[in-house]
């Protein structure tokens, strides 16, 4: 999803970073109107140790580019600069520059959102994370675990965002009911190649939510993504030349429930979330296109490929600034009907990939976070791999308020 920039752009981005620091150091003016636009910085990094080095792949899945479970030893995570604020009485704008540790900057999000349309309507346009699912719109640093949930990695390449437009309507009800429709360029996994003249992906979602008494609240959603793939290559290191052309449809059902004693989440609170996802792919996979005998695996008509996944996670804040969380995630690819797929990365290898993660987090302040995570990686045949992470995340300067 990150589009790499040339050197000149990197220099420009460095200048923006310097500006951000200047803004952070600058005393804010009274009235809460402080600095317009707001500028914030997110820094992350981690140390990881694995019981075995094993490249990330999921049997039965041709993966997107930015998937994986991190590298061992010392690692810098993504560094981000976010600039946001109201542009004028009609528009809100936000841009998120992401700097990859190996160098290179990308525009993760850069969107405008209307604030003045009547009757509960709003439009969002530019580049942004789709509103599908629950975790999809959440920035990585705001999630409870080191890695995106396994089904998001397998079916959406971690997180689906692209260039496009979103129309959203909030119903005039006393509980939340919202409907959103999106049209994207179709350049990001699971779409690819910006098909249909740069109209390669459509998405839609319906979400509802409310309170359950004073202490609990909920949010449920159903989402669909229809993505067109034109020569979508896989980021899987084991088969980098595999490409897919065809249609990919992803359905997501999401449920989130939060609880805090008397609704006061400051000291202790509990959050449970679960999502179930399903993908259907119709088209053809081309294996080893530059080889002597390129193979096209048929996924058309009755041969359509089906993959699915789910995760369940719970997070409990047991003391002010102390949290524990547990996540169980599984994905499953049905064996392709075309016999040509047998023995390739598209074959499920008789194993349901599974990842179990547990973490404990301490926040020295509202602006910093230290996380220790253990993951049991049973994504591939053979013995489970144990993965340990020690990760920090800091947010300096202004930071957009977190969504539910």
């Amino acid at each position, binding site marked *: 999803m990150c589009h790499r920039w040339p050197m000149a752009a990197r220099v420009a981005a460095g200048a923006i970073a310097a500006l951000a620091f200047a803004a952070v150091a600058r*005393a*804010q*003016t*009274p*009235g*809460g109107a*402080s600095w317009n636009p707001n500028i914030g910085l997110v820094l992350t990094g981690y140390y990881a140790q694995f019981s075995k080095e094993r490249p990330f792949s999921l049997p039965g899945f041709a993966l997107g580019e930015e998937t994986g479970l991190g590298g061992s030893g010392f690692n810098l995570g993504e560094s981000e600069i976010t600039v946001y604020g*109201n542009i004028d*009485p009609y528009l*809100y704008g936000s841009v998120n520059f992401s700097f990859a540790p190996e160098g290179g900057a990308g525009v993760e999000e850069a969107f405008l*959102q*209307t*604030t*003045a*349309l*009547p*009757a*509960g*309507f709003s439009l969002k346009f530019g580049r942004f994370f789709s509103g599908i699912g629950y975790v999809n719109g959440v920035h990585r640093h705001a999630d409870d675990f080191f890695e995106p949930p396994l089904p998001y990695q397998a079916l959406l390449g971690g997180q689906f965002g692209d260039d496009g437009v979103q129309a*959203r*309507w*909030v*119903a*005039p009800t*006393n*509980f*939340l*009911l919202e*409907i959103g*429709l999106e049209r994207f360029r179709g350049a990001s996994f699971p779409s690819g190649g910006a098909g249909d003249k740069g109209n390669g992906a*459509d998405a*839609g979602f*319906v*979400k*509802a*939510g*409310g*309170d359950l008494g*004073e202490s609990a*609240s*909920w*949010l449920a959603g159903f989402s*669909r993504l*229809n993505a067109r793939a034109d020569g979508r290559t896989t980021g899987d290191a084991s088969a980098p030349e595999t490409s897919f052309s065809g249609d990919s449809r992803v359905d997501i059902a999401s449920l989130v429930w*939060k609880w805090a004693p*008397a*609704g*006061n*989440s*400051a000291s202790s609170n509990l959050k449970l979330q679960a999502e179930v996802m399903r993908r259907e792919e119709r088209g053809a996979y081309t294996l080893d296109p530059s080889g002597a005998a390129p193979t096209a695996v048929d996924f058309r008509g009755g041969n359509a490929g089906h993959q699915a996944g789910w995760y369940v996670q719970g997070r409990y804040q047991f003391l*002010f*600034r102390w949290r524990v969380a547990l996540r169980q995630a599984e994905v499953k690819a049905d064996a392709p009907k075309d016999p040509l797929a047998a023995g390739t990365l598209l074959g499920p290898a008789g194993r349901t990939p599974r990842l179990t993660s547990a973490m404990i987090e301490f926040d020295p*302040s*509202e*602006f910093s976070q230290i996380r220790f995570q253990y993951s049991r990686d049973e994504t591939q045949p053979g013995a489970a791999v144990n993965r340990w992470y020690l990760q920090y995340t800091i947010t300096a300067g202004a930071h*957009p*308020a*977190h*969504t*539910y």
Partner: protein
Amino acid sequence: MSFKALFLGLALAGVLAVLDPGAARAKVNVFACEPEWAALARELGGDFVSAQSATSGLQDPHHIEARPSLIARVRNADLVLCTGAELEVGWLPVLLLQSANPNIQPGTPGYLEAAAMVPLLEAPAQVDRAQGDVHAAGNPHIQTDPRNIARVAASLAQRFEQLDPSHAQDYAQRGADFSRRWAEASARWKAQAAPLKGVPVVVHHKDWTYLFAWLGIEEVGTLEPKPGVPPSTAHLNQLMAQLRAHPARMVIRGGYQDDRPSRFVAERMGIPAVALPFTIGGTPQATDLFRLFDDTLSRLLEPLR
């Protein structure tokens, strides 16, 4: 669910929106961030407004989830009435943006920040987060001084007149009536609180700056080492050493705060730990704005008897 169904749904939503059943709604729908502003809206608006608070007196207004129900309530609001001064910076902006309600965005008549009507205390000369959760605009906990309530009431009455001109007369009348009753009560509270002048106290969080400025109570220490940073043993020991040399009369906390740190210090120092309502609903007795101050004063005066 197919795409056509979704598009149809959105089209239907558009038709419903044009027919907007809410347009005929008689009452001014007020979304208050804190209970004291919901109560003030009810005092001034009577039957012409319906006001609900996003938070209760037992919730920490610094840390509120941007819950789906709150988005729905902001979506339907005619007026968003909040403290401001960055108190709600962690949750209100999300509600405003996601509500897609053009009538309550900052800068519109449907948005009112109470703190903007009040001279703020403790505005830091320099904002450095090494100092803890400091609010750049100043201390936002303005509702603990009744003179501030009066200032906000004057602006709110005008705002109601602007939003609902057909009842302008009623708002003006109710506003004048409230301001008279409030001035009488404030004079009574001030007289009642005379023994509190110069009394040294320790507080959990800097919640009471305005109350103390009004009554001349002397704040000699905080349980939090820095604003928003939870009390640590080291800091409490240091604080107690200071209190042995210069004793305080009581330890004060808000109804929404953990009672353990204040009881810990109070027991060791042999002074009472006092829980004040902080806002409406913070104690069972603080059921409206008048009782909020009645109860606050009776709880402060109790240890002096």
